[in-house]
C-alpha cells in the first residue's frame, strides 16, 4: 500500500468514529436531566411574552421551547444537531447566551498550552530516565526509578498539584521550601490562575483578556500584546516581555504536576522498548564491532527504541487533556476542564457536548498525525 492510500484510508476510518462521537454527545445531552428551556428563562419562565394565532398566551418557557425546537421528534433534532455542528454552530450557553464555540475558543487553547508544556516536561524526563533505567537494568537505580515510575502513575494528580502549591508557594502560616531557601516571599511560583492576580476573569464567562483578535494561547497573546492594550490593562508591567514572563511562570507548577505525573508511564515504556532493542542482533553486532557503549546505546539502540514511544504520543495527549481537567481545577485555570465541570454542575449540556466533541477531535487528530508520521518512518505499518 502506498503512502497516500494509507493516509486516505486512515482518514476515512475516522469518519464513522466521528459520527459515533456525535451520536454519543447527542445521546448524553438527551439524557442529561433538566429542561434547557426552563434553565434559560430561570424564574421568569411564567412571563407571558406574546400570543399565538388563537390568542392563547405564550409563556417565556414555551417560547424558549419553540425557539430551541425541543418539541421536535428526536430524529429531526439529531439531524439539525449534525448540520449545525458542521456549520460551526455548537449551540449556546443557556445561562449567559454565549455561543459554545466562543467559550471553547477561549478555553481550549489554555488547556492545549498546558498539555503541550506538560508533555515537554514528561517526554524528556521519561525518556531520559527510561534510558538510564534500561542501561542499568536490575541495578539500584533501575529499581528506584521503576518504583518512582509506578508511584507517579499512582499519585492522584490533583493531590500532587496541591502538594506543589503547598511547598513551592505558601500562605502566611505554613512555610514552604522556597522562602527559607531562596529568600522569596510567598513562594517561588504563583499558584493560581494564568496571570497575575490583578487580572481576574470577568464574572460572566470565560473571556480571554487579550485582544479580540488573539489566538487564545495566552503565551502567544502576551508576547504580541500591543503597548496600547498593555496600558489599558490594570497591570504593573511596562513591557510585554514582563507580561509574557508572568504568563510563563504561571504555567510552571501546573505543567510540572501534569508532566511529572505522566512521565512515569513514559519511563516504563521507554525502558521496556529499549531493553527489547538492546537484545536485538544489530545492537550486539554494534557492540562486537567495539563501539563504545555510549555510542551503541544512544546512536544505535535509542533511535529504534524511540519509535514506539513516539507512537503513544497521541495517547499521551489524550491523557494530558484528562489530567488537565484536574490540574486546572486545582490551579484555578479557565481551560476546557473547568468549563466542562461547570457545564455539568450547571446542567449546561451544550457546553458538555462541545467539550467532549472537541477533546475527541483533538485526540483523534493527534493520533492520525502520529500514525501518518509513523507510516512515513516505517513503511511496514502500512501493510496492516
Amino acid at each position, binding site marked *: 500500500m502506498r503512502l497516500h492510500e494509507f493516509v486516505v484510508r486512515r482518514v476515512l476510518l475516522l469518519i464513522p468514529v466521528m459520527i459515533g462521537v456525535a451520536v454519543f454527545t447527542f445521546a448524553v445531552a438527551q439524557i442529561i436531566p433538566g429542561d434547557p428551556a426552563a434553565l434559560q428563562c430561570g424564574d421568569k419562565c411564567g412571563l407571558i411574552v406574546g400570543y399565538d394565532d388563537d390568542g392563547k398566551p405564550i409563556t417565556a418557557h414555551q417560547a424558549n421551547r419553540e425557539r430551541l425546537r425541543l418539541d421536535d421528534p428526536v430524529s429531526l433534532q439529531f439531524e439539525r444537531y449534525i448540520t449545525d455542528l458542521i456549520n460551526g454552530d455548537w449551540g449556546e450557553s443557556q445561562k449567559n447566551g454565549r455561543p459554545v464555540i466562543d467559550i471553547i475558543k477561549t478555553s481550549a487553547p489554555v488547556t492545549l498550552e498546558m498539555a503541550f508544556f506538560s508533555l515537554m516536561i514528561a517526554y524528556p524526563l521519561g525518556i531520559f530516565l527510561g534510558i538510564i533505567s534500561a542501561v542499568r537494568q536490575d541495578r539500584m537505580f533501575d529499581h528506584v526509578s521503576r518504583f518512582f515510575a509506578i508511584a507517579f502513575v499512582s499519585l492522584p494528580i490533583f493531590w500532587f498539584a496541591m502538594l506543589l502549591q503547598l511547598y513551592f508557594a505558601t500562605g502566611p502560616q505554613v512555610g514552604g521550601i522556597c522562602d527559607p531557601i531562596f529568600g522569596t516571599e510567598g513562594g517561588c511560583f504563583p499558584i493560581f490562575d494564568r496571570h497575575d492576580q490583578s487580572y481576574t476573569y470577568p464574572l460572566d464567562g470565560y473571556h480571554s483578556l487579550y485582544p479580540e483578535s488573539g489566538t487564545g494561547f495566552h503565551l502567544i497573546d502576551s508576547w504580541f500584546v500591543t503597548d496600547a492594550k498593555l496600558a489599558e490593562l490594570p497591570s504593573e508591567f511596562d513591557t510585554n516581555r514582563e507580561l509574557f514572563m508572568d504568563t510563563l511562570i504561571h504555567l510552571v507548577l501546573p505543567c510540572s504536576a501534569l508532566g511529572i505525573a505522566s512521565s512515569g508511564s513514559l519511563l516504563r515504556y521507554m525502558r521496556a522498548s529499549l531493553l527489547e532493542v538492546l537484545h536485538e542482533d544489530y545492537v550486539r553486532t554494534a557492540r562486537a564491532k567495539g563501539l563504545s557503549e555510549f555510542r551503541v546505546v544512544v546512536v544505535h539502540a535509542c533511535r529504534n527504541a524511540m519509535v514506539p514511544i513516539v507512537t503513544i504520543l497521541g495517547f499521551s495527549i489524550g491523557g494530558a487533556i*484528562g489530567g488537565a481537567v484536574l490540574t486546572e481545577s486545582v490551579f484555578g485555570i479557565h481551560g476546557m476542564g473547568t468549563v466542562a465541570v461547570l457545564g455539568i454542575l450547571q446542567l449546561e449540556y451544550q457546553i458538555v457536548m462541545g467539550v467532549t466533541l472537541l477533546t475527541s477531535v483533538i485526540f483523534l487528530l493527534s493520533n492520525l498525525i502520529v500514525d501518518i508520521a509513523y507510516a512515513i518512518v516505517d513503511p511496514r505499518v502500512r501493510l496492516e
Partner: protein
Amino acid sequence: MRDWEEGRKDREESQKRLLESLSMSISNLGRGWKIYRRSLLAMLGLLMVLSVSMVAIFADEIAVQHPYRNLTDTEDKWSNNPDQQESPPFSEECSLREQKITTNPSSPLFSETVVAESVNKVSGSIAYGYYTDVLSITEIIKIENDRGYDQDISLITIDPDNSSLFVLSPDLYGNSSHYTGVWVTYLYENEDMSHWWLPEGYDTCIFGTNKEGHDVFSKVVYGARVSLTIGITVATLTVTIGTIVGSISGYYGGRIDEVIMRICDVFFAIPGLILAMAFVAAMRSVSSLTFPVWLGILLPVLMLAYFLNSHLSTTVLSGDERVSDQAMGMLMGNRSLLVGLLAFLFFVGWLPAFAWPDFFGVSHSRGWRLISSLVVIVLLVGIILADRRFVQKNSLDGALTRIGSSFDWTNPWRYLNFRTVVVFLSMAILFKLSGNEGPEIVLIKDFDKLWQVQFALIFTGWPGYARLIRGQVLYVKEMAFVEAAKSVGAPPSRIMFRHILPNAWAPLLVAFTLDIGGTILSASGLSFLGLGAAPYTAEWGLMISESRVAFQRAPHMMLYPGLAIAVTVLGFNLLGDGIRDVVDPKNRR
C-alpha cells in the same frame, strides 16, 4: 431415578476429580507464588493491598470516630461537629467538647445530673434515634451561659462515682431567672475513642480534624471502605461486561465484531475522565436503577435470537439449504425478520406503551414475576430445542439425556464446578438486589452518587476490556485445540468456557488488578471535581476537595487522604505488575 446408593461410585469419582483439580491449582498457585515473591516491589504491593483491605474490613475497630447512622437505613453520615474544627494533629482541642446543659428546673429536659455524650460516635446506647456515645469527663474547662459570659467552673462538678455524669450545683439552677442553660466545655476521654494500638497518651486525633470537626484519621479509615468498594465493584463489573462483549466479538467475528469494535473506537476517542464526566452528567437524575419487567423479558429473547442466528450462519455450512420445508422450518428460517420486527417495535416505542401488567391486568407481585420468568425460560428452551430440531436437524435424544443427567441428584459433587457456582452466585446476588413489589425490578434501590460514579466508570471502562479479551480470544481461537474441540462436536459455549477463556484470562487478571487502582484514582478525581461522592462522605478525593479552602493553613486535612489514595493505588499497581510477571509465559517452564 437412581437412588443414593447407586450414585456412590460417581460421587467418589467426582470427588477424586475435584481433589485432583484442587491439587493442580494449588501446585500452580505455589509455582506462581515462587515467581511472585522474587520481586521485592511486588511483595511490597501485596503488603499494601492487604493492609488497606484489613483497614477497610476492620474500619469499625480501627477508627475512633464513627459516622452516625440513622436507624432506618445504613448509610454512613458524618454530622457537623463545631467544637473541633481544623485542629492540627496531636492537639488537645481534639478531645474538647461543648455541651449544652439545661438549667431551667421547669423545663422537661432538666435534670440535676447530666450525661456527657456525643452524637457523633457509634457505640451501644441509642438516643433520639441515633447512635450516641457516653463520654467520660476528665476535666471541665469552661462554663458559659447563653449570653456568652464565663461562669464559675465549680458550679458543675463531675460525679465521683461515675465520671460521665455532670452534677449541677443548686446555685446554677436555683438562679434560673437569668438563663435557661449553660454551655460547658470539657475534656473527655472515651474508651471507644482511644487508639488501642497507640501507647498511652497518644490517643488524640493523630491526623487532626477537618473543617467540619471530623477526625481525619477515622474518615481516612472509613474512606478505605468506600474506595475499595468502588474499585472492586467497578473493576469486577467492567471485567464481566468487557469479557462478555469481547468474547462475543472475538468468537463470532464478522459484522457483529465490526459493530462492537466501532463502538469501542468511539469510546476510545474521548479521553477517559471527560467521558466519565459526561456519563456522570447523564446519570444525575437517576435515583434508582430499575429494570422494567417487559424489558427483562424481551431483552434476553432478542439477544438470544440474535446470537442463535449468527451462530447458525457461522456453524451451519450453508444456511438455508438445511432448513426443512415444514412450517416450523419456515418460521425459523425467517427468524432474522421476526427479530428485526420485534426490535423495530421495541425501539419505536410501541411496545413500551403497553406495559405488560396494564395489558394483561396482572399484578406486580413476586408471584407474577416468577411466573413470567418461568414462561420466558420455557420460551427460550423452546426456541433452542426447535432450533436444534428443525434447523440443525439434530435429534433431541442426546440433548434430553444430557439435560436429564445434568440433574443428577445422587452426585452433588458434580455441581461444584466454576460455572454452576457462578450461576448460583449471580442468581443469589440478583435476588438479593431485587426486592420490591412494583411495576419494575429495582436492581439498586438507593442509586446514590457513588453508584452514579461507579456506573460512569463502568461505562467508560468496558471497551478497554472488550478489546483486550477480543484480541486474546482471536489469538486462542486460532490454536489447534479449538478446532480439535470443534471436530468432536463441542458446542460454542463449551469451546468458549472450557477452551478459549481459560487460556485467555491471564492478561485480564493483570488488567483487572491494575484497573482497581485506576478506578480508585478516577473515582477520587471525580469526587474532587464535585461530581462524585455526596458531600461529607468519607471519600478520599472529596476530603481533599473539601480541604481546599484552608489547605495552606491546615495541610493535614489534605495530606493524609491523598497519601491514602497514593498508597492504595500504588499497592494495586505493584500487585498487578507482580502478577504480570507470574503469568508472563517467559517466566513459565
